[in-house]
Each structure stands twice: as C-alpha cells, then as structure tokens.
C-alpha cells in the first residue's frame, strides 16, 4: 500500500551526500590538465585604462597565459540584459572584461591562466595597469543633477530609464485628504552572500563544451553563453552540479563564465575559476539599493485613499540579466494587501560607479512591502489606532477574492483575517502591549516595541503573457517529464534547478503521490541541459508553483496513457477502470487489475498495445501558469531596545504564513526560517558600504555582517492554508516570503519602542549607533530623549507629517 506523500514531512534524500561530504560542488571537480584562472580587478571606481603590461606576469613559472580586455575584444561580446523595460532605456555595452574603461571596483581587467591557484594568484601581482582616474558617481540623487560626472560618457546621462504605472485618480485621492503621510525610506544595498562562492569549470571536447557552473539557471545560461560567444547552443552543455545557495546571486550570466568558456576554447584545455569571498563581495551582483519617496493619503477613519510611489533604483555601472526589471517587480506590490482608489508608481533607474545590482531574495517585493508596511504603522500612529486595526480597516476581506488590485493584479485567494488571528494568539499580543505600557510608564531604559507586517507577494514567476507585456525577454513556463522505466521505477526530469530547495525530495513526493508508487522508487533529475532538455530554472519562488505543477500534469498524462494500456490488457473499457494505490482495476472487481509497474513493462515490451499507442510509459508537460501565486501572512516581532546603548534584541518573532497547499511541511518551515534570517539581517546587520571615492569597504565577511546563530532569535512559525485557486495543486511559492515579510516587522518594532521618544524612523541597518543617533533626535531639540516628548502610540503627531 502506498501512503499519501503530499503533505508529509519527508526527510530529504539530498542530505545523504551533503552530511557526509560526498558532494559535487563545481570547485571539487578537477579533470586532468585543468588550468586555473585568476582575475585582476579594478581597484578604482572609475578610470580610463591607458595600458596593461602583462609581460612580467607571462614570464612567471607555471603561467600558461595572461590576457587583457584587448585580447578578448573581438570575441567577448557584451553581457546580456534580458529586460529592456522601456523602449528608450539606456543600455550601455558591458564587455565581460573591461577594455578601455573601468566603472566599478572589482571589474575584471586582466586574467592569468596557470597550473595551479597559487601560481595564478602570484602572477596577478606582476601585471601593471596604468589607470587614469575619472570621477566616481556614488550618490543616485547627485547623479541625476545637471553637470554630474557621467558613468557612461556616450549616453549623455546617468538616467537609465523612467517607468510609470498609474491607476485611478490620484489627484482626487490626495486632494483635501485629512491625513497625508509622506516619507523617504532607503533600501540599503545588500550582498547576497550564498555560502558557496561562484565557481565555473569549462571542459572542451572537440567542438563541444561542457560548462559546470555554480548557477541557478543552467538553461538560461546555455542560451545566453551561445548568444554572447557565438558558440552554437547545441554545442554547449551546461551543468549546475550541487550548488551552494543562490538567493538570486546565481540568477546571472557572469563575465567570468563567458571568459572561462572563451579561455577553454582558446587553450583547448579544461579551465577552472573559483572566486574568493573578497572578490565575490565586489563582483557578485548586489541587491536592493533604492531611495523611496512615498505619499499616502487616508481618511480620518484610517481608510486609505491613494498611494504615490517615486523610486530611484541604483542599477550600478551596467545592466545585467534582469537589473532594470527588479524594481518593477515591486511596482505591483506597494499596495500590499490593501484596498485603495488610486495608485501611482514611478521608477527611475540610475547608473552609478558601483557593482551592478540585480535579483536578491524577494527582488523588488521586499522593498515594496517594507514601504507599505512601514507606512501602515505610521498611519496607525498618526491616527492613534492600533496597527492591527488600521490594517483590518483596509485589507481585502476573505470573501472578496478573487480581487483585482489597484496595481492591476488579480489576487486569486487569501485569508488575511485567519492568519492575523492566529499570529496574534501565538504572539500573546495583548500581554505584550500591556508589558510595553508598563515599561513606558516606568521609563524603563529598555523599551519594548511591537512590529507588525501583514504581507502578500507575487511569486511563481510567471505567466508568459504578463512577462511579455513587461518587455521581459523570455517566458515563464516550466517543463517536467516522467518516465516509468521497464522495471517500474520512475525517473522525473525537471527544468527547475535546485540549489538547496529540496526538489529531489519534494518532486519525488509529488510523483509518488500521484502515481501511487513508493517514494523510494522515484529519482529526480535536474540541473544539466543534457539530462533536462527544457527549463526556465529556479528563482522568484517558482519551482513548486510552476515546475511542481508541470510535474503534476505530467503524472496525470502518464496515468492517462497507462489507463489505455491497462484497459487493453484487462479487455475492459477504460471508463470502467479505477486507479488507486498505483493500480488499475475494473470498478467493483478489485481483484481484476494491473499495477502501474505491470503496465510499464507491457508498454516497454510493446507486444500487445492498443492500436496507435506509442510504446513506453512516459509523458511530458510544459506548463505556463495563468497567474502568479500570492502567499501571504502575518508576522509579529517584539524587540527590546536599550535606549542607553541603542542595542536591539529580538525577543519574540511569530510568523504565520499561508503558502497554500504544502507538499513537504519540513521544507516549507526551513524556507521560512532562512527567509526570516535574511530579512532580519537587512533590518539589523547588513549593508554594502561605499566611500565617497566609490570604494567598497565591506569586501569581507568581517565587514559585511551576515548574522550567526548567536545574532538571531528562535522563531515561532505556523501556517494557515488557503489553497491557491490558480493551479491544480493549490500551491503558492514560499522561498521569498520570510524575507519579504520580516524586514518591516523588525523596523516597525524598533520604531514602536522608540515612538514615545519622538523617533519615527531608524535607517537600515538599525545598528546600535543608528538607533542611538535616532534617539538623540537627529536635529531635534537639545536635552536628550525624553519619553512622551513627541507623543506616542495613541497620540496624534503634529508637524511635518502633513
């Protein structure tokens, strides 16, 4: 008998190799004759390259080749940007290796190919580059001013594009609005920091090349490498072996990947490059980096009238794979879970002399969610309402789904009331509010704050027609095939490419559940373009909601075909057959049946098949979703803030998420935990810092604070389950939800703790110094902070909020 697999907390099959060290990381591979590459990178934010002298480096022992941008100029092409968001978007050329000019610290200018890593690194020091410094462009607002130095002189501007979305009469909404909240929030620049540094190994085999890369996107990478290098696509195989995390940073076509491929072609030998963390911090694309100007109009009762969003988004020095589109993923999310009459969104992309930005966990939606959830708390404070109450007055009620939002999306399902009620109960909200009041009363130096975040997000990227309407360069479908082998064992091939998400387990559960075969009889194959012929890879919480649904469909197709064979073998009408527990039987005659395994053997032998039916039991499906999926939830954070030191300690964190039907609750919980850690890290710890000359000062893990176990609290997680109605599995994405929800929950908690001191914002990351400075008033009257100095929860603030 088979058990129900969907919904079971299966332990992961991936773990066996990962806990024993029998792994297949790209850097583990060392085919005979492998040469090692090291890159010389620009130490300047912006400079003209007058000359590069490599002769001393070339004469070093064990050095095979030393090459500069000029050497690659004829073959390296330009790195792709697949998302030209507007027709007049400025799109500068992006050579994988700089030729005449460097535009960010860390841009490759030369490379050494040597017998081992040490020889390659040594020879870098012997390369002499003559740079002529040019002015750095580090501040987006300055960059847009008349007379600013330009990142790309030939473009004549630092403005990349302006993209606008408007719906409803915003002027009417703003006019005479009793309450207007205006804020400027900064989404600091982040470094994604997957634990496995990037690595690439290119192996030439005649005219063919196999590229092993620590990538999230083997299929997209193959197409893009073919486009950039001119090597025909069918001569390229891309393998993503075990990949140690991505979080968006490996959703990219990197210059190093192109250059290693070109080196393998040039030298006819396997070529490998593995980055050091220090170069990775400079050269892996960064995330976030927005300045948000926000204006929210509401009625006295707290009902939102309209929202105006004006963004500046830092592109960095060049446009990478989806750089310009990332902020637009937020365009549809600034309204959150709330109803409003009017909405306008304007985003201006800006070039600076910094590392290019691109997708980082959440990609556009965390920024939007932060803005609206911070504004909701500010609105509550303005009106003297509880932050939960002000949200209740505005959110879409569960009976109103499907609901077309002011941003033009149709939310298929949701139950914000249920998730919030559950979270409030787990959190013991009233008890913590009472403690907060007590601490305020006592003027306790350690104040308690409660942060609320009721989020939704759009994921499961994406309906191809929607991507087309946004000028994205590809579709959003996913592919799956299911093969029942002659012995009855099952192979599942997915185009989704896991790098920690547990596909090998969850996909096997789906197939075992649908086909009624033992879990152990299913093997999941992925991450190799020679094995998995079609795919759109893994990002945007799309694996289950798109790839999993494709698999579900392929299983059904296998069962349909098997039914025909079984009916033939049983000499019965297929409509008279029932399929359960992996076996077909004639309705009402349980003993008269054939197992799926028996059918597979018959379909393999093909001695006696129904007329016109092809041998072998397999099927494939390419699934294009009709809609995004919209997970949602309520996160509550209690933070203790020491008003004397500025230190923040998270005391309680409750996350109730609704990700629809769950295939493996263990994996879902793990995704939420990890997401929370990254969202909290943005709120409290992480920031990529540049100095005025454009030098990145957080190049190591000693400077860029990825939190450790000691820096994070114990989370309380739970779920409500409102199935998605847009796919037959009822599933929604979960990979980014925790990150999207948690950042505003934490900052709201800190501000809530300090509101009696007149604090209404602390810029991220909320380090002790920044919290302390906010307490000093940042220009507020002298005399130090006093509780009650500027009102608090329950009192209406005057002044510049209007």
């Amino acid at each position, binding site marked *: 008998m088979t058990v129900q697999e969907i919904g079971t907390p299966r332990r992961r099959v991936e773990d066996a190799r990962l806990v024993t060290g029998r792994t297949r990381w790209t850097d583990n591979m060392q085919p005979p004759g492998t040469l090692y590459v090291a890159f010389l990178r620009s130490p300047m934010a912006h400079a003209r390259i007058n000359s590069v002298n490599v002769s001393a480096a070339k004469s070093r022992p064990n050095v095979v080749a030393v090459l500069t941008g000029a050497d690659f100029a004829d073959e390296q092409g330009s790195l792709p940007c697949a998302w030209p968001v507007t027709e007049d978007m400025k799109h500068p050329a992006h050579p994988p290796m700089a030729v005449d000019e460097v535009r960010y610290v860390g841009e490759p200018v030369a490379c050494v190919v040597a017998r081992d890593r040490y020889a390659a690194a040594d020879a870098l020091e012997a390369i002499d580059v003559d740079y002529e410094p040019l002015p750095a462009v580090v501040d987006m607002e300055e960059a847009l001013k008349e007379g600013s130095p330009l990142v790309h002189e030939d473009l004549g501007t630092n403005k990349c594009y302006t993209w606008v979305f408007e719906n409803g009469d915003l002027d009417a909404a703003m006019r005479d609005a009793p309450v207007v909240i205006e804020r400027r929030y900064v989404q600091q620049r982040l470094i994604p920091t997957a*634990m496995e540094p990037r690595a690439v190994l290119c192996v030439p085999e005649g005219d063919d090349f196999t590229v092993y890369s620590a990538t999230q996107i083997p299929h997209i990478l193959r197409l893009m490498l073919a486009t950039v290098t001119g090597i025909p696509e069918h001569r390229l195989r891309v393998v993503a072996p075990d990949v140690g995390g991505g979080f968006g940073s490996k959703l990219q076509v990197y210059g190093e990947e192109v250059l290693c491929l070109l080196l393998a072609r040039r030298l006819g030998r396997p070529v490998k490059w593995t980055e050091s963390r220090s170069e990775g911090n400079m050269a892996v694309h960064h995330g976030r980096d927005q300045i948000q100007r926000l204006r929210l109009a509401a009625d006295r009762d707290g009902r939102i009238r309209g929202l105006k969003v004006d963004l500046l988004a830092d592109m960095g020095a060049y446009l990478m794979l989806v750089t310009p589109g990332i902020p637009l993923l937020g365009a549809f999310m600034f309204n959150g879970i709330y109803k409003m009459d009017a909405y306008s969104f304007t985003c201006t992309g800006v070039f600076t002399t910094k590392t290019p930005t691109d997708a980082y966990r959440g990609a556009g939606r965390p920024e939007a969610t932060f803005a609206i959830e911070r504004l909701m708390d500010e609105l509550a404070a303005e009106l003297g309402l509880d932050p939960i109450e002000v949200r209740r007055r505005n959110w879409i009620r569960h009976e109103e789904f499907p609901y077309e939002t002011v941003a033009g999306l149709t939310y298929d399902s949701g139950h914000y009331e249920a998730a919030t009620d559950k979270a409030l109960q787990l959190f013991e909200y009233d008890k913590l509010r009472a403690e907060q009041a007590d601490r305020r009363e006592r003027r306790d130096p350690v104040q308690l704050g409660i942060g609320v975040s009721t989020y939704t997000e759009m994921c499961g990227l994406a309906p191809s027609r929607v991507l087309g309407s946004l000028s994205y360069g590809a579709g959003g479908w996913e592919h799956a095939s299911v093969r029942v082998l002659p012995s009855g064992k099952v192979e599942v091939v997915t185009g989704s490419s896991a790098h*920690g998400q547990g596909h090998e387990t969850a996909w096997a559960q789906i197939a075992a559940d649908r086909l009624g075969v033992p879990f152990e009889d299913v093997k999941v194959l992925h991450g190799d373009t020679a094995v998995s012929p079609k795919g759109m890879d893994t990002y945007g919480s799309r694996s289950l909601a798109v790839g999993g649904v494709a698999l579900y469909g392929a299983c059904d197709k296998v069962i349909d075909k098997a039914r025909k064979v079984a009916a033939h073998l049983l000499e019965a009408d297929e409509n008279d057959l029932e399929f359960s527990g992996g076996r077909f039987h004639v309705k009402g005659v349980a003993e008269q049946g054939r197992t799926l395994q028996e059918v597979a053997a018959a379909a393999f032998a093909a001695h006696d098949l129904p007329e016109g039916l092809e041998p072998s039991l397999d099927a494939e499906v390419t699934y294009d979703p009709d809609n995004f999926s919209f997970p949602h939830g309520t996160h509550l954070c209690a933070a203790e803030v020491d008003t004397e030191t500025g230190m923040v300690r998270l005391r309680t964190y409750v996350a109730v998420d609704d990700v629809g039907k769950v295939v493996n609750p263990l994996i879902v919980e793990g995704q939420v935990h990890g997401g929370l850690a990254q969202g909290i890290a943005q709120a409290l710890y992480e920031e990529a810092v540049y100095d005025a000359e454009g030098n990145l000062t957080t190049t*190591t893990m000693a400077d860029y604070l990825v939190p450790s176990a000691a820096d994070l609290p114990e989370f309380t997680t739970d779920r409500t389950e409102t199935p998605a109605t847009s796919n037959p599995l009822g599933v929604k994405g979960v990979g980014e939800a925790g990150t999207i929800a948690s950042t505003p929950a934490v900052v709201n908690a800190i501000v809530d703790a300090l509101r009696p001191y007149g604090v209404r914002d602390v810029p991220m990351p909320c380090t002790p110094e920044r919290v302390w400075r906010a307490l000093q008033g940042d220009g507020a009257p002298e005399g130090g902070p006093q509780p009650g100095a500027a009102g608090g929860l329950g009192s209406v603030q005057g002044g510049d909020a209007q």
Partner: protein
Amino acid sequence: MTRVRVEVDGVTYEDDVEPRLLLVHYLRDRLGKVGTPIGCDTTNCGACTVLLDGVSVKSCSVLAVQADGRQVTTVEGLGIDGTLHPLQRAFHEEHALQCGFCTPGMIMAALDLLRENAAPSDEEIREGLEGNLCRCTGYQNIVRAVRRAAREMRTPAQEREVTS
C-alpha cells in the same frame, strides 16, 4: 618544499608541500578530500572547519606544514562502515541543512562544542557555533539538531550529571 606526514581520516599521507600551502587546499587539491569546502578567505564563515588532533580549526587558517605529524578529521571521516555519526543523522532528521555548503564545517564545529560541553543549552549552542555561518536555515534547525545529537552522544555518566 617541505616534507609533511599527516594522518587524514585514518590514512597517513606523505607529501612535499610549499610552506605556504593552506591545509584546506592540501586536503582538497592534493588529497582529493573535497568534502571540506571553502566559503571565505578571512576565517569568518567556518565552512572549512576540521578537527586537528581532535580540536576544531578552520583549515583555511592553518598551513599544511602545521599539520605535520598530526591527525586531521574531516566530515568524510565521521561515521563508520556507512553508518552516519549521530550529528550527521541529527542534521538530516531535523532538516538542519538546505544547500548543505556550510554543513561539513557546522558538523565539525558542533562535534568540538559537544566535546567541551556534553549538554549545552540552546544559547550555548548558538554561541558555540558563532564562528560558522549558514545562509539557508536561519540556524533554528541546526540548534535542534545539535541538541538532539548531544542527547544521543552523552555517556550514561554524563546523562546522570545532566538529569541530576
């Protein structure tokens, strides 16, 4: 070149190495012991943690020559005859890994932590693993796994001490 003699996971190796060769590169590139990965270059992440004579070290900050005449244990040396070590089993059971890149180092650091403290509190586990970074799990299940393994690994005498 310097001659070294190092025992790694029960096998003795003899090699001529450059004095500057890092232990982790010796393990990975020379011995093919690729179970120990490298996550950074400033000893912050702990992915490369191994035991040197039973004590945890970050093998990116130890030279191969410093391991001369000593015993190295990597994650590949845990568990006997295909059985998982209690820590490996606990990481699996508690879903304490996702991408798994930090896992070898995390397990080796936890092993050293439990050697010093057979019954750590959650807070002691978090502090004890402060030198090992994970980007996937948020650490919660790692803490659970170490707690679980600790329970299983305690000797009867240690168990009496904990419960008394």
